[in-house]
């Protein structure tokens, strides 16, 4: 407990709503239009408290992985450094006994999340003092039993999403006044 508040994991679910009217009106083709909105569903909090849910945090890890490539140039200039983000994650290891409520909840929620990973109709928030993840995504999840005991280790790795969403737009120049001819298209 920190300041009397248990650590908490919150599972957020949502439903994507598509509107096929956008494209179908003009073309009469049955086509999926762009996804307009995400309908939030009630969130499911799980208190990581031994008393309430029978779960407690064993270890936490925070990790950032970056792929760095350094290229020297033919002109002996300063090397060009390119970096690419690979991972920004928090890994939480928890302990639970076989009959704990939290273990059953985690197992059921993991099954619920699995089909939604591509549509991203879920998010997970984790709040424990300095280690927080808001609206993160699951990277891995495992439940393993300690041999010869009824203790289970739960390992959950969450990816931290970006804190700001930027719309990257590229400027595209026009090839002007083109007469389109099926026999010869521009760009040739």
């Amino acid at each position, binding site marked *: 407990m920190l300041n009397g508040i248990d650590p908490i994991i919150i599972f957020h679910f949502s439903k994507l709503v598509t509107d096929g009217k*956008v*494209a179908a*009106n*003009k*073309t009469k*083709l049955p*086509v999926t*239009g*762009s996804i307009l909105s995400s309908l939030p569903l009630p969130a499911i909090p799980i208190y990581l408290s031994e008393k309430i849910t029978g779960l407690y945090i064993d270890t936490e890890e925070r990790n950032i992985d970056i792929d760095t490539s350094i290229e020297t140039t033919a002109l002996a200039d300063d090397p060009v450094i390119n970096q690419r983000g690979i991972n920004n994650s928090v890994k939480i290891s928890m302990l639970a006994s076989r009959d704990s409520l939290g273990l059953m909840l985690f197992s059921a929620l993991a099954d619920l999340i699995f089909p939604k990973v591509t549509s991203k109709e879920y998010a997970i928030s984790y709040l424990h003092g300095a280690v927080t993840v808001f609206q993160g995504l699951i990277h891995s999840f495992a439940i393993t039993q300690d041999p010869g005991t009824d203790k289970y280790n739960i390992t959950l790795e969450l990816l931290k999403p970006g804190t700001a969403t930027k*719309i*990257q*737009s*590229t*400027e*595209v*120049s*026009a*090839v*002007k*006044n*083109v*007469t*389109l001819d*099926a026999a010869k*298209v*521009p*760009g*040739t």
Partner: protein
Amino acid sequence: MNTYDCYKLINVDDFEATGLVSKELSLFLTGIGLKTILITKGNFISVLIDDVFLSLEVNGKNPFEFGGYAVFKDPNNDLWLGVLNAS
């Protein structure tokens, strides 16, 4: 005869190699402004822009013209968007 201002969007081979069924592009088209264009892959590669849906090579048509827009694929397999000239 209609004339178009043409903008190169993406390379069709590169898009198909990603295995995605759709990709949203946010492009600043000179002379027009910021446009959000959805490229989709069904039986045909298609483009959705401003409520207009254009499919490449439907009935063998390249370019495919509709609703003030056109799409075509050049010999390098680059996908182009044509915007009808008002003048």
